[in-house]
């Protein structure tokens, strides 16, 4: 354990004082969870006026004299249900009812530093940490009781927020044990955790915490917040991406009552006492824009462009996997000598996250005796990164800026950044008043970032009995997540080639795992077809990981693979994979209308294994939702752009999955109480598209190798010749 600096002990005591005494248990991190700038962070003082925990602490928990438990975590709730699942894990280890636990989440002043809520890391990392914290708290409470009763701690039991001595029948509430005292404890790394097989609260389908407020409309998202004297903002947007502002005539806007126009370089924001006036003022700005110089590819030639335009290094959207090439054996030689060989290219389009709650922020600036302070409420998956981003944009030290994340209207990897927060903060600081900014849907389409577009070339060889012997995989710009095959192929070369992206790109649910699985699993299905093997059997033959084997088998069994007598125009397909600790296999059935070429995903069965399951119902909800969302990327979502302009920046033109697009879904949960719990918000999305591609082939004989596959149906007549591979 890191030696606790004296100031750390001091600020812990102050923090406890603020919390009103009780038991405070902290987990000091000393691993990669801490940011690279950890050293620097430790030297930063606490925010003025408020004690703050040192930033090498990654989780903490407090029990007050009423036995109420407050858990502090930098994670945020975006609909994935971690406010609930983390509370379950704490309740389990602490032996208290869920109702006595409150989670303070995503508040840069109150919660420990956190990298962000992404990459399905909340459950494996934060969940495990909080379990350790809670288990330590329980040990400490037992020790307190043992001390008080002069008995051996080993004979005491804990349940329902009490420590009990079964021999004397003495019993004390947690709150009574800590009352009037301030106790801190550090977490021992080897503290004993309750095995999943013995869970009684974790592992159950606890309903979502705070759910009543969700069905009554009472929950306040950032976009719902109001404070007195608040101004409403609108931001002037360029005509095209990268355009620069030439002259601006803001006189008409500025003559409107209560309107202020703030200009700082190309940043122009208007504020007004009401949203109507703000919108009118924005409309009254007369701006001229000079388009960005240089090449401007469009969605028509993007794939050539990405191949031709390498970036010197990986950038945004390229997270979550190895960026260096991977080689094993001799891929070129094995390809040349393979019995069967198949080479194909696959493409994936830029797509938008379309979080139903667009970006929003409320920024409040205060200038007090002890200096200035800025508080920003915003829905971001990375509150600490956005705090730093805001601080830099407004020229304030990080510790003067506080970012608070109310439970947010979804993100799917699309809200890692703090655009609205920065914009609102700039205006709030300039004007000295609270400023709220809610992006329009159109702004969200034009000025957020996209899932990267990419091209993937796959070349593979198979031997006479259906074993894949050679594999090369070249991914241009999609990203490296899940880029390596889960099959133990002896000869491989897997390379990620970052490209210069003409559009802003970034993270998306499961990152590039969807693109890489689409290419890989489509290719595997083509290989199976080429060697005339059943695609499930072909996969089972080539898989050596028993957990992957299991999900494929379970999905196939539940689906009734391969079945007989498919209706005319129907086809079935399968795909599988492994990412972020989750094993997934999906079987899908599609129907293709012979006349119109319309594709419908009729049903999908997904088997998923992410270790010990913390909340089965929440997990089903995530898996099913990922499949429905995956329908869009598989069949029809794509950003259409030309000369730096997004041409389908409205829901009328950008099609998202709707009610009738949702297939009948069957989720098979594979619980592994003996394995660590992993996240589940992402991986279940990635096997759908390749399963659907294979199913479309079976139904029509057409191979579709571009996502989205059927934005306006399949052209059966034209494509059938080319498709019979």
């Amino acid at each position, binding site marked *: 354990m890191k030696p606790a600096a004296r100031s750390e002990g001091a600020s812990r005591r102050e923090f406890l004082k603020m919390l009103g005494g009780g038991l405070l248990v902290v987990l000091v991190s000393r691993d990669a969870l801490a940011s690279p700038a950890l050293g620097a962070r430790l030297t930063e003082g606490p925010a003025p006026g408020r004690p703050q925990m040192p930033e090498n602490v990654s989780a903490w928990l407090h029990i007050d004299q009423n036995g109420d438990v407050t858990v502090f975590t930098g994670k945020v709730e975006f609909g994935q249900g971690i406010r609930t699942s983390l509370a379950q894990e704490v309740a389990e280890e602490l032996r208290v009812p869920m109702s006595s636990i409150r989670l303070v989440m995503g508040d840069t002043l109150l919660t420990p530093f956190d990298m962000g809520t992404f990459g399905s890391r909340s459950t494996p990392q934060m969940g495990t940490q909080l379990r350790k914290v809670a288990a330590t708290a329980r040990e400490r409470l037992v020790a307190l009781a043992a001390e008080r009763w002069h008995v051996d701690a080993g004979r005491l039991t804990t349940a329902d927020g009490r420590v009990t001595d079964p021999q004397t029948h003495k019993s004390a509430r947690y709150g009574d044990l800590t009352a009037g005292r301030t106790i801190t404890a550090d977490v021992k790394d080897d503290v004993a955790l309750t095995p999943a097989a013995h869970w009684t609260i974790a592992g159950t389908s606890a309903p979502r915490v705070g*759910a009543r407020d*969700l069905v009554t409309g009472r929950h306040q998202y950032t976009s719902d917040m109001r404070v007195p004297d608040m101004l409403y903002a609108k931001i002037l947007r360029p005509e095209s991406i990268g355009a620069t502002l030439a002259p601006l005539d803001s006189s008409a806007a500025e003559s409107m009552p209560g309107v202020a126009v703030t200009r700082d370089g190309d940043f122009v924001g208007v504020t007004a006492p009401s949203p109507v006036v703000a919108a009118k003022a924005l409309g009254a700005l007369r701006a001229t824009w000079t388009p960005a110089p240089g090449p401007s590819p469009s969605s028509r030639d993007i794939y050539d462009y990405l191949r031709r335009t390498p970036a010197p290094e990986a950038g945004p959207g390229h997270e979550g996997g190895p960026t260096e090439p991977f080689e094993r054996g001799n891929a070129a030689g094995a390809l040349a000598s393979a019995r069967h060989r198949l080479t194909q290219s696959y493409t994936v389009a830029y797509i938008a996250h379309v979080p*139903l709650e667009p970006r929003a922020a409320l920024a409040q600036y205060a200038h007090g005796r002890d200096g200035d302070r800025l508080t920003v409420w915003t829905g971001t998956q990375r509150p600490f990164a956005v705090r730093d981003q805001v601080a830099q944009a407004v020229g304030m030290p990080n510790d003067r800026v506080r970012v608070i994340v109310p439970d947010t209207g979804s993100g799917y990897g699309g809200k890692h950044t703090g655009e609205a927060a920065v914009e609102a903060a700039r205006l709030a600081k300039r004007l000295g008043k609270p400023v709220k900014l809610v992006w329009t849907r159109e702004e969200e389409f034009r000025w957020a970032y996209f899932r990267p577009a990419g091209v993937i070339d796959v070349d593979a060889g198979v031997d006479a009995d259906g074993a894949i012997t050679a594999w090369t995989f070249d991914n241009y710009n999609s990203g490296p997540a899940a880029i390596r095959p889960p099959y133990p192929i002896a000869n491989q070369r897997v390379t990620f080639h970052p490209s210069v992206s003409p559009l802003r790109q970034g993270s998306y649910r499961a990152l590039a795992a969807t693109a890489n699985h689409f290419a890989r699993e489509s290719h595997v299905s083509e290989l199976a077809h080429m060697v005339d093997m059943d695609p499930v059997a072909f996969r089972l033959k080539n898989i050596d990981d028993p957990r992957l084997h299991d999900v494929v088998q379970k999905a196939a069994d539940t689906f009734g693979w391969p079945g007989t007598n498919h209706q005319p125009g129907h086809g079935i397909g399968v795909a599988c994979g492994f990412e972020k600790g989750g094993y997934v296999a999906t079987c899908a059935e599609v129907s293709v209308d012979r006349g119109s070429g319309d594709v419908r995903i009729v049903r999908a069965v997904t088997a998923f294994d992410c270790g010990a399951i913390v909340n089965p119902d929440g997990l089903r909800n995530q898996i099913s939702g990922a499949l429905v969302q995956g329908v869009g990327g598989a069949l029809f979502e794509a950003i259409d752009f030309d000369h730096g302009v997004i041409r389908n920046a409205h829901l009328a033109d950008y099609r998202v999955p709707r009610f009738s697009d949702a297939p009948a879904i069957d989720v098979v949960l594979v619980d592994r109480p003996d394995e660590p719990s992993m996240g589940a918000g992402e991986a279940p999305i990635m096997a759908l598209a390749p399963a659907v591609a294979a199913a479309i082939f079976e139904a029509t004989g057409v191979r579709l190798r571009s996502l989205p596959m059927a934005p306006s149906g399949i052209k059966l007549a034209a494509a059938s010749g080319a498709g019979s591979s």
Partner: protein
Amino acid sequence: MRIDIDVNGHRHSVDVDPSQTLLEVLRDELGLTGTKYGCGEGRCGACTVLVGAHAVASCTIPAQSAAGPPITTIEGLERDGRLHPVQQAFLDEQAFQCAYCTPGMVMASVALLRANAQPSREDIAHALETNVCRCGTYPRIAAAVRRAAAAGGGETPR
């Protein structure tokens, strides 16, 4: 101009701008933020309210034309602290993730069940086709509507 609108059984006299939508009046003037903005173009249903018995996208209704018929928002469904059967069914089915679509989904479902007490799967999909759940919880929402229908779906009339 000043208009009188009837929201959740209360009359409000509000000064509205000709450019303002009913959604903006509900959220910004009356503080009824349960009704959400999702697109402003009538394509997502997050802003669904009842005008009379009909579910409408309040972002497409000019505020001026909303004067007159009774308007019901998500805030107007509870009775004496008791959830409306549709709200209860959404809760029972856990038919949400981020829940940003939920108020609109609930209102559209209430309108559906008033018009059709025993909707088929197709009826449900058809009635909710303009409501987007980006988290993809449609199957649960459909289950919630069926559950509410089975529970009598209806409601105690106002």
